[in-house]
């Protein structure tokens, strides 16, 4: 049985437009890393939003870890889906500094656990010197790394990433990519990765889907 199941999912923003997603169907096994490719505006971000529960599909079914999270009669709230997300525009909380942003999702851990996890994450994304900075004091690439650390920190069973490397230079990109891939595999984390860059797919993905 596959870990994530997407069946005939359709979605329209406004009734005047043709559907953005039309009967999308695929599945992902546990621990698999899947790349989503597709031209701009093809609905990649929209698909991730639906999986995370930030929107409701017009039709179709999505299940995660054998539990139906949305279909015609069920809807599991985003906070109960155990899905982490790296947003395309980062969505870092402007009123919190780097540490507090990364810690944000760790509210279920004890204080010591939280501290350990925070340090681990900060080391991973190499932001040791920036712990107390606020998002607007960081470069685009640094913000992106914080967003990545924030989503990874609570160890979600499914991680959705919307172009997580787009703002990193080539060097940082390949180093973070490799480390990420190691972490994901070690934690047996399942992952959906939207990207424009076929290099990313080649480097860390087991398979790919084109929208």
């Amino acid at each position: 049985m596959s870990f994530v199941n997407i069946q005939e999912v359709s979605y329209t923003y406004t009734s005047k437009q043709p559907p953005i997603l039309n009967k999308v169907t695929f599945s992902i096994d546990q621990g698999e890393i899947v790349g989503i490719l597709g031209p701009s505006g093809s609905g990649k971000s929209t698909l991730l939003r639906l999986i995370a529960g930030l929107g409701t599909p017009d039709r179709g079914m999505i299940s995660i870890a054998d539990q139906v999270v949305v279909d015609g009669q069920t809807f599991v709230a985003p906070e109960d889906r155990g899905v982490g997300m790296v947003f395309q525009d980062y969505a870092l909380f402007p009123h919190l500094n780097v540490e507090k942003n990364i810690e944000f999702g760790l509210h279920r851990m004890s204080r010591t656990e939280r501290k350990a996890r925070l340090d681990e994450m900060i080391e991973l994304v190499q932001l040791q010197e920036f712990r107390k900075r606020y998002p607007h004091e960081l470069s685009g690439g640094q913000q992106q790394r914080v967003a990545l650390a924030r989503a990874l920190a609570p160890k979600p069973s499914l991680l959705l990433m919307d172009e997580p490397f787009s703002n990193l230079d080539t060097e940082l990109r390949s180093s973070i990519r490799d480390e990420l891939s190691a972490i994901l595999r070690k934690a047996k984390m399942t992952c959906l990765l939207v990207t424009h860059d076929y290099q990313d797919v080649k480097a860390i993905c087991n398979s790919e889907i084109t929208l």
Partner: protein
Amino acid sequence: MVFKTLLRNIKMNTNGWLFISLIGVAVILLPVFSIFVSLFAEPNENWEHIKQYMLTNYILQSVGLMLFTGILTVMIGVTLAWLIAAYDFPLKRFFHWALVLPLSIPPYIAAYTYSAMLSYTGVVQTALRSTFGFTPDQKWFDIMSFPGAVFIFTLFLYPYVYMLTRSFLERQSGSYVENAILLGRKPVSIFFRIVLPISQPAIIGSLMLVIFEVISDYGVTSYFGIQTISTAIFQTWFGMYDVDTALRLSAWMMAGVLGLFLIERMLRYNRKYSASTSKSSQLVPKRLKGFSSFAALFFCGAVFACSFLIPVIQLIVWSYWTYEDVLTVAFFELTINTLFVAAIATGMIMFLAVVVANVARLQPNRFGTVLSKLMVSGYSLPGAIIAIGVLTFFIALDERMEFVYLLFGYEDAPLLLSMSLVMLIVAYVVRFMATGYNAVEAGFEKVGMVYTHASRTLGYGITRTFFKVDLFLIKGALMGGTILTFVEIIKELPMALLLRPFNFETLSTKTYQYASDERVIEAAIPSLFIITVSVISVLLFHQLGKKMEK
């Protein structure tokens, strides 16, 4: 299947937030609802009499006031907006914001001040007599008349038109005007052919605000002895204790308001020019020279003097004359009263506004839209209507609750609720919800959904997300809304007059009382207090607006 999906959607959105929102909307709709219900009762003789002999006159007076005030405020407001937006002349930067200040003087205070200034013993006629030995015909200074009311409304309400039109012209009209100049058009022709038509949406929007203020007025019209529907509602209730007739008048008035809305809709649809081209282009002001520069300065200066400077100076002088008599313990008490009631009502408004606005944005569907439309509907209802609606509701409620009161040992069923402050506070909430709600909604719109979404994928439900994230992000908007609402409540007169408990005075009712006792001069201190609070809020808002633009 369809049914199950519906069930799912209902379940998805049912939570404490929704329940509070539904209560909020129920409160807002309460006065309209109770007026509607009472229309099914048998009308009494009083109503027949009013309908037959006076109603037409009330309607004519009300419509006349709206019409003339509307025309004049547009003329003055748009001219000023154009001058400030398109030209540079001495003191322009000062007038840019100072021309908004008259909004901080409630028209009823302006009416008392002007009529006292122009009276036989007032500063104007005294000066004429002592310097020129000249006693003019009293008719020349008769401000307590229909034209006088139009004069007062125009001077103190034009800033709505000025403000909205100016900011529209500054942001939107650059390319149109440049084209017209390139085509060799003269300034006057540009004004009539370009400026007026393209700023139509801003003008109509602000004109509606002006008209609602006029329709809702009680202070100016009653003092000047003009019979409008609003004053008629007051007389039937205060003079004859005939709630039934007051209700019927309110229903007529509501029909009128509805008609206005339809007209506004039509005007919006019929618009020939759509200025909503996505490319907004800034207007670059042109420097005026010589005579025209002087004329612009003079015009702005004259309007500012009449609508702010002169009345304020007069009030300061009167305050100096009377402060020993007026500033008593009782005065401090009523100031505290006013601030206390306004604070409670503002707190309730902001609380409901935040809850409903959050529900509406989390449900971007028709339900959310309807919710927010209903929430702001109170603003278009004149104070007198809301007052009567709230009053009938609470009297009915008291009757139903009779047995409860008896149970608690009260003798012969008192009118507990309808004698308390609760009514006034509810009325404030209904009337000024829109002020707070619009601010909160704008704040939410500005931050968008991303942060909320991020918080939810990190494991927080909507309530904790609100307290940990949303609240911080809308802080500025929340503060702006709170200030505006608070000030509106302090300025309000008609509802406070109708609904305050016995012996309970606010600053505005005290001002009214002094004026109707022919002691206008003593009204100066409470008036100045109200004006000062409003000026501070206008200035704060100006600062806030500048900060937001950055």
